[in-house]
Every structure is written in C-alpha cells, then in structure tokens.
C-alpha cells in the first residue's frame, strides 16, 4: 500500500509537508510512521491526514487514491502548564553544523519578550500572536556544558531558558587495521578522531563485527580491540568497525588473511661474541610464530648513529651473524628487528646492543714537520706532528717514539719517548745531518715510521718574498719546481702569526703539484700570513723554495706612525717616521699620505693637492708612493705660522685614521741667526769664564803678580822702542850690594805702614823716599846712569826725576800725555797724576805698602832681550820705590817679601838707619 500524508501547521489549510509512505500491509496491521518537525511541536498545533492507494504490480492499472482521512490535530500546548512563558525545544542534542529552530510561546500577548543566545539578543520570526521562532543555522560547538538560550519577560521576574547541546561530528575511524603476533589474538587498532562526548551524555562507542564468523564484540577502548582467534581453520577475516553515538554512527571495514598480518614480537637476548679489532659475532633470539613460520631478521650495524652495514638473516628461533670489516677501537651498535619472511607485514620492535672493537696498531704514519732554529749556536729542531685520526689511530695512543740517527757519523740511535698528550718535541743537535723517525704507539703496537731528515745547515734562507692574494677560499699558493727530484712539497705557515707560539701549520703536497689552496678557519682579514714552500728531496730533506706573504683581505691601517719633527726653520721642517714597521700592518703598505693644513695659507704647496677630510674640513694632501720613504720635508712655509700635519699610511683598502693632526709653529726668520751667533758667543764667554776661574792663579802670575818679574814686563821693550839702547835689566846676581845707605830722607816722607786708618792721600807723599843701594866703589860721586824698572801692573808713584834719567812709561799714559815725557818734571807730574787717580779710586783707610825693588844690572837679565849695543857697565844701581796696593790687605805677607828680593827683610828701624 502506498500512503500519502499531509501535514498542516496552525491551521489545516497551511500544508507544510506532503509525503508518501509505502509498506506491505498484513492483516490487522498497526503501522508506525514518524515525522520530525523542525519547529518544536509545542509551539504550534499541527494537523495530519492521509490517503492510500494500492501499490502492487499484480493489480493492473488504474489504481485510485482513497479519500483523505479527516484531519487529526496534534496539540502539545494543551499539556503545558500555566506558566507565562515557554521555550522549546528543551535541552536538545544536535550535531555540529546542524540547523535548529527554537520557539517561545507566551501566554500574554502584551508581554514584551526578549531572547538571548550566549548573552547576545536574538530576533525571531513571529509565527503567531504569542509564538515566535528562531532559526539557528549551522550551529557550532562552543562548550561541553552546551549553548545557553534564554528568554525573559521585560519588567517581570520571568525567565525561561534551554541548553542546546552541540556535539562534535562523529568521525569515521581512521587507520583501521588488525594484526597478530602469535596467531592467537588479533589486535585491531584505529584512530577514533574527535571525541564527541558531552556531560550527562554517553560518548561514542565502538563495536567490532566479523562477517565470516558473525561474531560481534563491544570494544573496551576507543582506539583498539582484541579479537580472539579460535582456531587455525579461519584464514580470512572481514572486520567491520562501527562507531556510534546518540546522533548516529560511522563504520569502516577491512578484509585480510591472517597469515598476511603477522607482526612478530621484538627479538630478545641480543649478544656480541668474539669481538676483535675487525670482527664480531652477533646472536639473538625471537619468539616463535606457529610451527611453520620463518622470520626474516634485519641486522643493522650502526656507527655514530648511521647505518654502516645491513644484513638480512632468515631464522626460526635463534639468530647469529658474523660482522666483519669493522674498524678497530670503534664503538658500534648492533640492531635487530624481524618480520614474517613469507608475507611481510610489519617489522617487529628493535633490540640493540652497543659494543667496541679491540685496538690495533696505528695504520698510518704520522704527518711530521720540523722547524730548525739556532739556539746558542746549536741547531735546535722542533718536531711537530698531527695527531692520528681516530680512523688511523686504531686505539688510544699511549706515546710517541722519536728515534734520531746521525747520518754523518757512526753513532748509536737516540730514542726519545714523548707523551701522548704532546704534539711535538724539541731536539738539540749539532751541525751533522740527522734522520729522525717518529712513530705513534698504542696498546697493539707502533705505527709505520714517519721519516724526516734535518741538517744543522739551514740552507738558503735568502729567498725573495712574493705576495699572494687571499680569497674567500683561502690563499692560492703556487711555486716553481727547482731540482726536479722532489718527492713532495710542504707549505708551511702560522695560523696566528701575531702570537707566540704562532701555531705552525703545514700541508704536504705530492711531487707533481705546483700549486695549492691554503685555507684555515683561523685566517682573519687584516693579518699578514707568511707561507714558506719547501721542496722535499729524495733524502727527505726540506729545502726552502719560495716565500709568500699575503692577506686574506687587506684592511686599512688602524694606526698612524709616530712622526718626529726635526730641522724646524721658519720655512721648513722635516717629518720622519723611521720606526714605523710596514710588515706588521693590516695590509701591504703602499705609501703614505702627508696632510698639511694651515689657517694662514689657503693654497696648497707644490706637490700637494687639495683634499677634504671626513669632518668636511679642507687640507692639502701629498702622496708618497714609496712605503720605505719614511721622511718628508715640508718646505715653502711661512714664518711664524701654525701648521698642522698628519702622516697616514695607506694600503689597497684605504688609509689610516685621519684624526690626530700635530701642530707645528714655524719660528721667525731671525731666530736662527740668533741661535747661530748668540748661542756660540754665550758658549765662548762661558768657556773663557770657566777657564779664567780654573786658571786664576796662572792668570795672576801672568798678569798681575804680587811681585812683577821685570823680564816679563813690556816696559822694557817700550823703552827700547824709545831708542834707549842703554837701558837694560839688571840682574841681581850681577849687582852685589855691600852697603845700604840712606841718601835722602825727605821730611814728612815717613811712610805710615801702620796707619791703616789714615789714607795715603793724607800722607805727605809728594817726594817719595828712595833707598839707594850703593856699589862698593868709592868713586861713586853721584847719580849716574842707572836702570829704572817699574812694574806697570801696579799703581806706582813716580820715581825721583832727579835721580833717574829713565822713568817708566805706562802705555796708557803715553798717548794722553801732553808734554814730553822725557822731561823729568813732566814725567813726575804725569806719574803723580796717575798715582793720585789711583788713590782716588782706592778706598780711604786702606793700607798701602811700599816695595823696594832691586834694579837688575843691565848686563844681566834675559839674553834674548839683550840690546844690540851692549851698554857700558853701570856704576851704580838705583832702587826705585814701588807701591803696590793690595786690596783688602793691611800688609803684604812676609813670605812674599822674603822670596822676592835678595835683600834681607828690614824692619823700619833698619830702613831708617
């Protein structure tokens, strides 16, 4: 039968749904059919009616519809209470993404009702005067306690609410698969996906159904289920997993053969036996799978985390495999896993075991290099070697053996043992050649020997250094072979040339190599690296071939040289920086810039050009292209001007810092004259003064002796020049006095020797007293020709003009004397005048002293000064009083008198006798 059903809402004429329902009708049937309304039935009266028609192919057409039944009313509102407000549906559970219609019904049409969804007011469609509906499309999950919707009557304490529980969508189980480890239990696993559980609502459940056996089990877990294999009879399995919750279900199926789903258990008892340096035996066990199953086991050998070897072994229960080609003293890991050999499904879990192979003798000779230097005249060889790699050491190096053999003389081998921690040693040798063997020792034995020959003669070290350019990859070094018999080459350099030790490095190269790239992580820009290329001869001796120097990248100099200013004149000065080392700079010094600036001069000197400094100031620049020229003369400068200069080196990367200018002020033009003339004069004067001071006694003897030496007086020559050839100096020895006679004693001529308080001017001194020393001849009758000598060094009184035809003439007195000095009166006057002048210059009260000087005979004296016509022997000698005025002395010291005259010192009484 086919039933056509109509459903109306609110009133019968408002048909909202028409549908057919077909079913087989039996006798006295009670048919059930249901319909779900989007709008909760409580909010509106619904009506339903139906009609039927035969729907059987056996009954021929035409088939007619029956009449419509009467409308049946479904009114849920009648069962509601008297509450003023209702909200439907109550606590509905829907799946996320569904559409939900909510309605409220109010008893009082005048009530103003507002509704809220999660606190936000919502506005619905009014279905009736007191019914409104809200349609929520694609509701989303907010929280497990549901989405709150409530309505309230304004101005009244009436509130009604519902909770809409939104469940996550139930997902189809993913990765559903089943497997067995022992043919007794099948374990099925899957990924359940999102949990759809809600509070007070049951979560999703999982059911496992096997179609061949028709068995069904409820799984205890959400992601796995165990199925017991009854017997060996069932080979094929068709499982269906059904996930179900309150809103629906999802299912997934899998069909498989049991023997194709074998997942063996993890092997056990993995051991290493007979572990040598290169071999080891691995044994393990597996859990048996049935009586006929064979397992394929995979044995991995891992070193440092990487699989080195992989072997497949088919076993039943016990596995064994001999691992070979192992490295001595190396840690390995053996790892085993197994799978069904017939139908591979999955590898079992892995079991692993670490082991270390035994040590073996080092397999490779050390890489040895040497450095020969002379210490205290003896060649000292420093040997360096690179530690053997783990691959070649084959164990822990215990020590190094260094054997030294003299090649020039027959002598015993010298063996040195060097600790394993050292990477070199130092040997002091002589000028002979030595062959040095170096071996590394571990517990299993020594390494092959590394042989090197050194000689005390360092060879040709004078090799011109060339430049080499550095790149990002390092230094590309090339050389020219020299002898053609080289067995190899060595390039030597220091990683840290500025340090001590400089971390010597070397690189061995084969004999057919003439270039290489030297790279090191230690290379830094701005550091000069020196490379030395050695040729290794067939005798294993190293000869220096070439020297190279270069920078990985040249930098601008960071410092400027210390410049010394010299030869400063008013127009020039010289700059010199000879201490500046060009080798230790961050680049090859190509030259220098000399900067000069002056406020006085706006134009640059010849050879200079204008330049702008970083601070935008202008200056003059001169470039010196020769890095070895370390002096520069600044010329054409203005006197008394301030100049600022700066000398900075430059490399290919730029010049040094342009910051610290040095000020120089040129002197005026005459200062150098002053320096050249006055300074020497001052020096000379000082020298004279010092000499005078040091030779004061000598000067006194020469210039102003206490008792003048007549031979040294120039008066004699003066007198001679006045054509008095008869005048001469009388020698004392020639004139032997035998009597003293006072021939004249003028009045008032008493010389007051003791009158210190009385000046000489107060003394009557107009006619000085003379003592005459008379000769023994009786016939002496009067004053004859006699020699008169005076010491002109002293101020002296004039001699008696009447008693002496000769009188002393001072050089100073001669030019200024108006009258002829040949007249005794004039002379006396002149002398008196001079004397009085002298007295006037003498302090009053000073003591005066009269000396009596013995006149020498004309025949005696200096033979050199003899006159051409010897004078006749004199008949008498005349003593002439001389006065000396010693400053500051009351009386002359007696010793002076006694030493100066052959006469006996006489006291006053004797004088006046």
């Amino acid at each position, binding site marked *: 039968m086919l039933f056509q059903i109509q459903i109306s809402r609110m009133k019968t004429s408002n048909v909202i749904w028409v549908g057919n329902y077909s079913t087989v009708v039996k006798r006295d049937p009670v048919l059930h059919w249901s319909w779900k309304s989007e709008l909760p039935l409580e909010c509106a009266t619904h009506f339903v009616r139906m009609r039927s028609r035969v729907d059987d192919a056996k009954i021929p057409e035409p088939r007619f519809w029956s009449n419509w039944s009467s409308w049946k009313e479904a009114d849920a509102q009648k069962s509601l209470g008297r509450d003023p407000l209702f909200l439907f549906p109550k*606590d509905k559970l829907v799946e996320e993404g569904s559409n939900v219609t909510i309605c409220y019904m109010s008893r009082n049409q005048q009530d103003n009702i507002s509704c809220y969804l999660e*606190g936000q007011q919502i506005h619905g469609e009014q279905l009736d005067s007191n019914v409104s509906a809200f349609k929520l499309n694609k509701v989303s999950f*907010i929280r497990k*306690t549901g989405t*709150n919707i409530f309505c309230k009557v304004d101005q009244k304490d009436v509130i009604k609410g*519902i909770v809409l*529980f939104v469940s996550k969508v139930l997902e189809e189980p993913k990765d559903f698969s089943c497997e067995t480890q022992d043919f007794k239990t099948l374990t099925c696993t899957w990924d359940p996906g999102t949990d759809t559980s809600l*509070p007070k609502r049951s979560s999703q459940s999982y059911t496992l159904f096997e179609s061949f056996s028709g068995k069904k089990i409820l799984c205890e877990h959400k992601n796995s289920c165990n199925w017991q294999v009854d017997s060996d009879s069932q080979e094929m399995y068709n499982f269906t997993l059904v996930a179900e919750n309150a809103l629906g279900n999802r299912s997934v199926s899998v069909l498989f053969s049991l023997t194709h789903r074998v997942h063996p258990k993890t092997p056990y008892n993995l051991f290493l036996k007979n572990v040598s340096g290169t071999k080891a035996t691995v044994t393990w066990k597996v859990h048996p799978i049935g009586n006929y199953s064979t397992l394929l086991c995979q044995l991995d050998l891992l070193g440092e985390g990487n699989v080195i070897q992989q072997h497949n072994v088919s076993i039943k229960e016990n596995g064994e495999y001999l691992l070979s080609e192992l490295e001595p003293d190396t840690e390995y890991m053996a790892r085993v896993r197994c799978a069904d050999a017939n139908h591979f499904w999955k590898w079992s879990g892995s079991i692993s075991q670490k082991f270390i192979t035994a040590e073996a003798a080092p397999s490779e000779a050390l890489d040895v290099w040497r450095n020969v230097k002379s210490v205290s005249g003896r060649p000292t060889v420093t040997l360096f070697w690179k530690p053997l790699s783990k691959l070649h050491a084959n164990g822990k190096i215990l020590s190094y053996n260094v054997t030294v053999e003299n090649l020039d003389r027959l002598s015993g081998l010298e063996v040195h043992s060097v600790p394993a921690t050292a990477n070199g040693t130092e040997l002091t040798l002589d000028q002979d050649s030595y062959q040095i063997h170096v071996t590394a020792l571990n517990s299993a034995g020594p390494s092959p020997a590394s042989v090197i020959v050194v000689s005390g003669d360092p060879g040709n070290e004078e090799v011109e250094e060339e430049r080499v350019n550095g790149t990002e990859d390092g230094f590309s070094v090339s050389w020219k072979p020299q002898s053609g018999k080289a067995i190899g080459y060595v390039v030597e350099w220091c990683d840290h040339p500025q340090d001590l030790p400089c971390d010597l490095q070397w690189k061995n190269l084969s004999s057919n190599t003439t270039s290489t790239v030297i790279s090191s992580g230690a290379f830094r820009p701005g550091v000069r690296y020196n490379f030395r290329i050695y040729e290794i001869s067939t005798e294993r001796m190293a000869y220096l071939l070439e020297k190279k120097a270069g920078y990985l990248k040249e930098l601008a100099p960071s410092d400027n040289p210390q410049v010394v200013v010299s030869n400063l004149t008013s127009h020039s000065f010289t700059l010199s920086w000879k201490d500046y080392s060009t080798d230790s700079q961050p680049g090859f010094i190509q030259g220098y810039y000399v900067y000069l600036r002056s406020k006085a001069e706006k134009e640059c000197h010849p050879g200079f050009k204008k330049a702008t400094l970083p601070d935008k100031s202008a200056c003059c620049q001169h470039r010196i292209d020769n890095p070895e020229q370390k002096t520069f003369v600044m010329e054409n400068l203005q006197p008394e001007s301030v100049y600022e200069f700066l000398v900075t080196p430059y490399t290919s990367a730029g010049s040094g810092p342009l910051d610290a200018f040095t000020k120089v002020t040129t002197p005026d033009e005459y200062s150098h004259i002053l320096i050249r003339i006055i300074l020497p004069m001052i020096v000379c004067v000082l020298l004279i003064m010092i000499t005078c001071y040091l030779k004061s006694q000598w000067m006194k003897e020469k210039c102003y002796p206490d008792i003048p030496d007549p031979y040294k007086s120039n008066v004699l020559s003066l007198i001679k020049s006045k054509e008095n050839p008869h005048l001469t100096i009388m020698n004392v020895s020639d004139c032997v006095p035998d009597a003293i006679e006072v021939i004249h004693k003028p009045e008032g001529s008493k010389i007051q020797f003791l009158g210190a308080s009385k000046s000489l001017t107060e003394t009557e001194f107009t006619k000085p007293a003379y003592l005459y020393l008379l000769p023994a001849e009786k016939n002496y009758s009067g004053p004859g020709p006699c020699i008169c000598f005076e010491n002109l060094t002293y101020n002296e009184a004039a001699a008696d003009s009447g008693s002496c035809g000769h009188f002393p003439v001072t050089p100073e007195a001669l030019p200024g004397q108006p009258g002829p000095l040949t007249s005794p009166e004039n002379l006396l006057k002149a002398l008196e005048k001079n004397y009085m002048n002298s007295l006037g210059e003498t302090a009053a009260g000073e003591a005066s002293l009269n000396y009596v000087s013995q006149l020498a005979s004309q025949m005696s004296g200096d033979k050199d000064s003899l006159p051409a016509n010897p004078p006749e022997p004199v008949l008498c000698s005349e003593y002439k009083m001389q006065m000396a005025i010693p400053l500051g002395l009351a009386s002359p010291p007696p010793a002076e008198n006694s030493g100066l005259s052959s006469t006996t010192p006489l006291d006053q009484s004797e004088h006046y006798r």
Partner: protein
Amino acid sequence: MLACLCTVLWHLPAVPALNRTGDPGPGPSIQKTYDLTRYLEHQLRSLAGTYLNYLGPPFNEPDFNPPRLGAETLPRATVNLDVWRSLNDKLRLTQNYEAYSHLLCYLRGLNRQAATAELRRSLAHFCTSLQGLLGSIAGVMAALGYPLPQPLPGTEPTWAPGPAHSDFLQKMDDFWLLKELQTWLWRSAKDFNRLKKKMQTPAAAVTLHLEAHGF
C-alpha cells in the same frame, strides 16, 4: 597570601591564649572560625569565577540576577536585620551549621557532575575547606555548650534533579548555590565577628588576635 593564611591557620591551635584563668574559652575558636570564613570567601571568589565560565553566558555575566526558581531547597542566608540582631548565640550558630551542612552536600553533587578534571579538583578542595568550617562551627558550639542540630530522618538533602528539571534550570541551581554560599560566608563573617566581640567583653580574657590581611 594564601600560603600565608594557611600558615596562620595551621599555627592557630599552637598559639597559646593569654588567659589569666588558664581556660582559653570559646574566643580562639570563634576567631579561628572567623578567619576560616574569610579564607573561604576568598577561595570561593576564584572558584565561582571558574565555574560560572564553565556554565557559560549569561551565568558568568556580572549583572545576571535570575529569579530563584528551582533553588528553593537551598538555605537562605538573607534575613531581616532586626531578626538577625535578635538571634541568640545558639540559634545563630545552629543556623550556620545547618546551612553549611546543606551547602556542602549540594557542593559535592556539583563536584560529581563537573566535566573537567581541573574543576573537580577545585571543587574538592573547596569542599574540604568547607568541611573544616563546619567542624570549626561545631567546635564553637561545643565550647559554648550547645548541642549540634540533628538532621531529621529523610530530610537529607540530595542533588538529584528530576526528569522535569531541565539543564538550564540545573545551571540556574548551580548559580544560586554559589551565590547563596557567598552570601552565607558574608553573613557568617558578621555572625562570628559579633560573637567574638560579645565573648571578649564579659570574659575579660586576653586572647591573641591574629589578623590576616589582604582578603
């Protein structure tokens, strides 16, 4: 601060009361109960915030004040001021004891229904503290010689909503339970403060008062 208060509470029994007669009397117990009330008040503030967020809007909105629909069985804390003042000590303490007995029972039901483990832990912790407050009130009553109220048979409060009890109404009940609990804690603080002052005046006993600041 919480740790500080816990430490204070832990050491409260060890604090010797400076009583001239040697009998500390009910004063320290009342003080302890008062402090515990204040502590629970602070603890509930945090718990209520978490739980109302768990319920969702509008229950976590500050101005939400629904009618007390299904929560009629909850003991009311609000009372007329004159009536409250006229309460004697025994009645005052008895009402507190009965109220917290009921509220604790309801709170345990709330704990059983909580969906998240964290919320269950917080509720369990609060229940333990509330149990401590109940014991403290019982101690005060015993010190004052008042008997504990006996629950009438068959009136054991349960928290099992009937089938007609919708989820929304259940949330309303949870809301009111927390709100009533808060009000009771406020009232209890006043009750025990009043009792404390009352006990201090006639007893002339010197008790060491430990103040816990910050709540």
